[in-house]
C-alpha cells in the first residue's frame, strides 16, 4: 500500500516585481493513515505554504516544483476534475483563525452541510441532517447545536465546528493549520483531544502545523521542523522536542519551558534577531546569523539534510554523528 501523502523535493517560489522569493525549498514529507505528523516553525518559515500545496491552493503567482503525491497521484499535475474530488473528500484543511472563517449569518449546521451537498448534489435533506448531527457528536457537541449561529458559540465550540466541517466528506487526510493557537489551555486540550481521537478512530492521517513544539510533541508521532523555507530537522516527536539535534529546533523547544524545570525559572529562553526574510536570505545556512553555535564555515554553503540513525535527519554541520 502506498503512503497517504508523499512530498518529494517540493519547492515553491513566489514571483514578485522585486524578483523571485523562494518560500519553500526542497521539502520531503511522508505521512501514513492513522499517523499525526507535526510541522513546526515560526511565521514565514513556509509551513503553511507547504500545506497549501497539498490541495494545490497556492496562489497563481507561485511556481511549484517537485511532486506532491496523494495516494500515489501527483496533486500538482492532476486534472481539474480530479483535484475537485480531492478537495474536502480526499483531504481537507482546518484553517488557522477559524474563529473568523465561519459565515456569521448562517447557521453552523448549514455551513457543515455545504461541502456534503457540493460533493453529492442528489443527497436527501434528511440524510444531510443526520450526517451533520453525527459530525457534531464526533467533535463533542450536541447535534442540536446545528441550529446555532456562530456568535452563539464560544471560541472552542467554533473551532470544533471547523473540524466537523473538515470531516464532512470523510477525508483520508486532514491538515490542521494552527488549530488551537487562539484558544485557552483548557479549550486547547479539549480540541486536541478531539483531533487525536478522530485520527485513531477514523484512521485518517493528519498533518498538524504549529509554532508550539510542546503541543506537537504531545500529539504527534513525528515532527518536522522548518526554518527559512527548508526542513532543518525531522524525527520522532519525543526526540525532536526532548533532544533536538539542530540548534534551531533546540531553541524552539526551549521557548516553551517545562513548568517546574529549575533551569527555566527566571530564565526565559529566546533567540536574538528575527526570522529571515525569504526575499533576502543570508548566505549558507539561513539560521547562521542567529545561531549560538555558528562558525565561519556555516555561512559558506547550504547544509545538507543528513541522517542520524534510521529515522532522524538534521541540516547542520555542527551536529556530530553519534
Amino acid at each position, binding site marked *: 500500500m502506498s503512503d497517504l501523502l508523499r512530498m518529494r523535493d517540493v519547492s515553491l517560489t513566489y514571483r514578485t516585481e522585486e524578483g523571485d522569493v523562494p518560500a519553500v525549498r526542497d521539502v520531503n514529507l511522508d505521512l501514513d493513515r492513522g499517523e499525526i505528523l507535526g510541522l513546526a516553525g515560526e511565521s514565514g518559515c513556509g509551513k503553511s505554504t507547504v500545506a497549501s500545496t497539498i490541495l494545490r491552493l497556492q496562489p497563481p503567482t507561485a511556481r511549484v516544483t517537485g511532486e506532491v503525491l496523494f495516494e500515489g497521484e501527483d496533486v500538482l499535475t492532476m486534472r481539474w476534475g480530479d483535484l475537485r474530488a480531492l478537495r474536502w473528500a480526499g483531504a481537507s484543511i482546518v484553517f488557522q483563525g477559524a474563529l473568523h472563517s465561519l459565515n456569521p449569518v448562517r447557521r453552523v449546521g448549514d455551513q457543515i452541510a455545504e461541502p456534503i451537498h457540493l460533493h453529492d448534489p442528489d443527497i436527501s435533506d434528511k440524510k444531510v441532517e443526520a450526517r451533520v448531527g453525527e459530525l457534531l457528536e464526533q467533535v463533542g457537541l450536541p447535534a442540536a447545536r446545528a441550529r446555532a449561529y456562530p456568535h452563539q458559540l464560544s471560541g472552542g465550540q467554533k473551532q470544533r465546528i471547523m473540524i466537523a466541517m473538515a470531516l464532512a466528506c470523510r477525508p483520508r487526510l486532514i491538515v490542521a493549520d494552527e488549530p488551537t493557537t487562539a484558544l485557552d*489551555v483548557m479549550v486547547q486540550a479539549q480540541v486536541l483531544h478531539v483531533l487525536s481521537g478522530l485520527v485513531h478512530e477514523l484512521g485518517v492521517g493528519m498533518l498538524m502545523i504549529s509554532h508550539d513544539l510542546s503541543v506537537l510533541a504531545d500529539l504527534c508521532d513525528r515532527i518536522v521542523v522548518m526554518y527559512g523555507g527548508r526542513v532543518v530537522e525531522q524525527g520522532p516527536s519525543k526526540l525532536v522536542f526532548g533532544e533536538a539535534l539542530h540548534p534551531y529546533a533546540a531553541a524552539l523547544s526551549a521557548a516553551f519551558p*517545562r*513548568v517546574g524545570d529549575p533551569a527555566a525559572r*527566571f530564565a526565559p529562553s529566546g533567540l536574538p534577531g*528575527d526570522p529571515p526574510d525569504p526575499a533576502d536570505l543570508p548566505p549558507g545556512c539561513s539560521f547562521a546569523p542567529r545561531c549560538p553555535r555558528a562558525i565561519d564555515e556555516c555561512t559558506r554553503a547550504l547544509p545538507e539534510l543528513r541522517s542520524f540513525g534510521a529515522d532522524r535527519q538534521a541540516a547542520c554541520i555542527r551536529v556530530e554523528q553519534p
Partner: protein
Amino acid sequence: MTGRLLEARKVSVEFVTRGGQVARALDGVDLEVGAGEIVALVGESGSGKTTVARTMLGLERPASGEVVFEGEPLNYSLRRLRELRRRVQMVLQDPAGALNPRQTVYESVAEGMRLHGIAAKDPQKRNEIELVAAAMASAGLRPPERLFLRYPHELSGGQRQRVLIAGALALGPELLIADEPVSSLDASIRGEILALLLKLRDELGLGVLVVTHDLGLAWNIADRIAVMYLGRVVEAGPTEEVLQAPQHPYTQALLSVVPEIEELRPVVLTGEIPDPTRIPGGCRFHPRCPAVADGSAAADGVEEACRTLPLEILPPDPRGHHVACHLAALRSTTGPRTGSIV
C-alpha cells in the same frame, strides 16, 4: 512606601447585559502588586483577568470594594486618575493592532509623553528626543535613532512589541500591566520579550502585572501567581508553591493539560467557564470540579459544602499560599493530604 503600589481589595465589578441581567465579572478580588515584583494573573477566557487589569487602571469602577493606589483608595478624580495612568502603564496584546500604522515609531513612543508633559518636567533636563531614545534603548531597540522614522509595517513582531513597551517606559512608570504580552509573538521572540520584562524589574525596579493564560510564562518570569476562575481568585501564592504544589482542583487541572508536563495524567475539564450572569451556588467551580465528579469530595465529606456553601479565599499558609477550596481547607486542617498529584 515600598511594596504595595497598587492593590485591589474585595473588588467586584458588574456589567448589565442587554437583557437587563447583571453579570458579576469580578466578585471579591484581592490582588496586590508591588515595586520590583512580577505577578502573573492566570485563568481561562472569561475568568475576569482582563477586567482586573482594567479595574486596576481605573477604567472600570468597582461595584463594591476598592482599588488602592499607594495606600490610598482611588477616588476617581481626574487628577488622581491622570497620575495613576502615568505611573501605571498598560502594554496591550497584539502589537500589530495597537500601533497606529500611519505613525512613525518616534511619534508612537512620544505621544504619551506629550500628553503628560514629561519633557518639561524631566529632572535631568533632557529634551523629547533624548527621552524617546532612552525609552527605546531601555526596551531593547538599539540604536534608537535608526528606528525613529520607521513605520509599524517595517518592523518585526518582536520590534513592535518593544515599541509598545518603549511607549510605556517613556512615561517613567512604576508599574506595567501587560495583557498577554507574548501570545501573538513567535516562539523565538517570546523569550526575548520575557527577558526584557525581567530586566526592567531588576534594573528599574518596575512592578509588572502580567495577564496570561500561559503557565509556562508564569514559571519563566513571575514571582507570584494568582489563578482566577469566574471572577474570583481561587489560588494565589509564590509561583513555585502554586505551580509545584497546587491545592485547588482547578489549578491542578490547568497544570495537567500543559503539554510538556508528562508526569501528570491530563484532567481535561468538560465545558467552559459559565456565564457570569449565572454563577453556580456553593463553590463556583463545583459543576466542573474533578474532585466532585470523581467522588473524592464526597469521600472526604465536603461534597455538600462544595454544592451549597460559598467560600472565601483561605488565609495564607506560612509560605504565603492561599486557596479557595473546601477540600483543600479540610486537608490543610487534617494534616498532609494523600493522593496528591504533584
